[in-house]
């Protein structure tokens, strides 16, 4: 083996093997084996990914053509992998964080019976496999295969506890909403095929191909692609599945619904930057959507009481930030934020899992409080995560978020203002969450308090690792203004192109300063508001709107689901049964009726028969002579 790039196919294959082994052997494998094996394959994939990353860093990129997936005269789709800067970076995130979460899961899911435990790991492995396909895919179709695959795994894992109807409903909702997005993605692919006849990145993003496309084509394709991204990455209008998806086991939320899958949309847009850069209108749409999502989700998060729901809305909000970056042409910043967000959000989800684990399944933060003294590792690492997401200087989130804000400012200052407001809300609700959970006094039951304990090391070690990453992760992208050389931007340059904006350092300092100060103020406000939290009354007014998440679910239900259902009902009962089938049966009835009526001609009377014969004869004469 001369070059690890020749065996990149092994990276997705390993989790697939894990899936097959765990899936087929779920009845025979003991828990330790399935957990271990499930983690091992991801670790192996991670190690390979590291080797791959090193190769890429040395400037080698690679496209591995495995076999022809579909080959007809007018279209050739290979099953091929592309390894470049962007995908290798994502490989690291997926396999790395994936591995940590696998390890974490071995402890978190330990109470499950063996077959379910193995099933869980099988699903996780399958997810990793799909996600790897998604990022490694050398053309849009392979990406789409992974794209749907992760949707499927998300569905399976959200509905992991399939006996609860709410959970399976959430799973279904996730899948269907993803499918809506997927349809957009697919249509975009078809559009590209119709116009260019190709799907592989090298061809479609080449200048020659782009020249063939009209501006309308590009706008249409990118809008459709973006529709796909909104589904997968939970943006307006398709974001509502993500908070519901918290029904799944917490490590799943960490892996799928925070660190990896939901960033697929960002990956896709970044991957297709060549197209998006040409579509100004789409860019605007993306930026506005991202911004709106960031604001909306942040506002909802303020009034959520389920620990995971808060994190979920936070994820939606952060994804909004990433799209804002994409919309402003700041692809590197988006990817950068994906990376840091993966660290700190995974960390916080895992932390919340640890809390839930300790609380015996309780997720309502109003019933928590003062957990710090019981579970110090969780508390501290969670706090680090909060600092990172809030954008406190020095932590990873600061660098990535600052870059997004700076880019936004360069693009449009009013957007910057709104984005900053969203960032303030982020700091506010994160610290609300932290304060309510870890500080103050315990508000749960006696029994729960007795039971409080720090989680086992299989859970805390990943927390610590992620906490470290949350701190240092930002240093790969120190902006020039802070004296750095932004290693990440340089690394990604071949894959995502130049960063679009150039602010002078003075402006950047000012922006950083303003945002840091305001964030601190916001944290302080949260501290004063919640440090001595007591159960409160039913909220009213605007707060109630927030508690009920702007009534978006209700709106969708009333505006889309119910009408479609009633139309379907009309189809079923009226058009199908009475209309079409009624018509068909009506012919039968008409024949029957005609038979019954004609029967009366056969009166039994000879006179009548002859009369009819005479009349018939008369008719024949008339026809012959007069017609």
């Amino acid at each position, binding site marked *: 083996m001369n070059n690890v790039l020749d065996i990149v196919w092994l990276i997705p294959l390993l989790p697939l093997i894990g899936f097959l082994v765990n899936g087929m052997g779920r009845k025979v494998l003991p828990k330790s084996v399935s957990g271990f094996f499930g983690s091992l394959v991801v670790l192996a994939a991670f190690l390979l990914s590291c080797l791959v990353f090193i190769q890429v860093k040395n400037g080698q990129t690679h496209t591995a053509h495995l076999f022809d997936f579909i080959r007809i005269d007018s279209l050739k789709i290979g099953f091929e992998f592309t390894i470049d800067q962007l995908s290798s970076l994502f490989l690291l995130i997926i396999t790395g964080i994936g591995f940590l979460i696998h390890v974490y899961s071995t402890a978190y899911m330990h109470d499950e019976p063996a077959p379910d435990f193995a099933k869980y790991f099988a699903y996780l492995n399958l997810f990793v496999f799909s996600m790897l396909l998604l990022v490694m895919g050398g053309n849009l179709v392979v990406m789409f295969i992974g794209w749907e695959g992760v949707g499927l795994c998300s569905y399976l894992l959200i509905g992991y506890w399939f006996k609860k109807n709410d959970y399976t409903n959430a799973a279904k909702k996730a899948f269907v909403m993803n499918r809506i997005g997927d349809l957009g993605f697919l249509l975009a692919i078809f559009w590209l095929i119709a116009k260019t006849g190709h799907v592989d990145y090298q061809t479609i993003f080449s200048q020659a191909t782009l020249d063939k496309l009209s501006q309308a084509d590009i706008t249409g394709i990118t809008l459709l692609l973006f529709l796909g991204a909104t589904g997968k990455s939970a943006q307006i209008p398709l974001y509502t599945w993500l908070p519901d998806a918290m029904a799944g086991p917490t490590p799943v939320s960490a892996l799928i619904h925070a660190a990896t899958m939901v960033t697929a949309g960002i990956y896709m847009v970044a991957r297709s930057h060549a197209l998006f850069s040409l579509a100004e209108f789409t860019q605007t749409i993306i930026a506005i959507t991202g911004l709106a999502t960031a604001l909306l989700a942040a506002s909802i998060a303020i009034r959520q009481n389920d620990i995971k729901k808060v994190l979920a809305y936070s994820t939606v909000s952060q994804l909004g930030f990433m799209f804002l970056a994409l919309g402003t042409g700041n692809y590197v910043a988006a990817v950068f934020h994906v990376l840091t967000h993966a660290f700190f959000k995974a960390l916080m989800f895992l932390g919340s899992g640890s809390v839930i684990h300790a609380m015996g399944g309780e997720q309502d933060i109003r019933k928590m409080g003062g957990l710090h003294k019981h579970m110090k590792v969780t508390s501290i690492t969670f706090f680090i995560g909060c600092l990172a997401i809030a954008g406190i200087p020095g932590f990873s989130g600061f660098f990535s978020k600052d870059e997004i804000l700076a880019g936004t400012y360069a693009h449009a200052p009013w957007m910057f203002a709104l984005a900053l407001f969203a960032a303030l809300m982020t700091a506010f609700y994160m610290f609300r969450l932290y304060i309510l959970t870890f500080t103050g006094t315990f508000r749960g039951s006696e029994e729960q308090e007795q039971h409080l304990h720090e989680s086992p090391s299989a859970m805390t070690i990943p927390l610590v690792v992620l906490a470290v990453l949350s701190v240092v992760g930002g240093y790969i992208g120190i902006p020039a203004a802070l004296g750095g050389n932004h290693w990440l931007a340089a690394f990604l340059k071949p894959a995502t192109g130049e960063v679009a904006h150039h602010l002078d350092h003075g402006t950047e300092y000012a922006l950083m300063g303003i945002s840091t100060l305001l964030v601190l103020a916001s944290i302080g406000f949260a501290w004063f508001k919640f440090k001595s939290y007591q159960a409160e009354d039913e909220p009213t007014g605007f707060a109630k709107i927030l508690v009920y998440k702007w009534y978006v679910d209700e709106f969708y239900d009333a505006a889309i689901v119910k009408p479609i259902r009633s139309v379907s009902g009309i189809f079923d009962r009226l058009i199908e049964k009475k209309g079409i089938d009624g018509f068909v049966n009506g012919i039968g009835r008409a024949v029957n009726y005609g038979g019954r009526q004609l*029967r*009366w001609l*056969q*009166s*039994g*009377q*000879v*006179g009548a028969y*002859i*009369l009819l014969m*005479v009349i018939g004869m008369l008719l024949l004469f008339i026809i012959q002579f007069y017609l």
Partner: protein
Amino acid sequence: MDIKAYIALSLVLFSIGMVGILMRRNAIIIFMCVELMLNAVNLLLVAFSKMHAVGEAAKALPTVASDAQIFVFFIMVVAAAEVSVGLAIIVMLYRNTHSIDVNFLNRLKN
């Protein structure tokens, strides 16, 4: 006489027979009406035979007139046979039902 007159006469008799069939319910009278129709046919055949005999056809086919009259003869033969069978049927029916009213014959219908 113009052949048309015979055609008209024959048709009138034929129609009288037909109307009789439609009007009457007595099987025997209906049967007699049929005989009237046959006679109308016979008359017309004979008239046509005469027409052909004096026309062009006789030159090519000398038997043209007697052919038709033999036909009439056969019609009479057939009529005689029919009458014997028909009256037998009517008598049989009368024996079973003591009626020859065709309107009572409606066990078979629909």
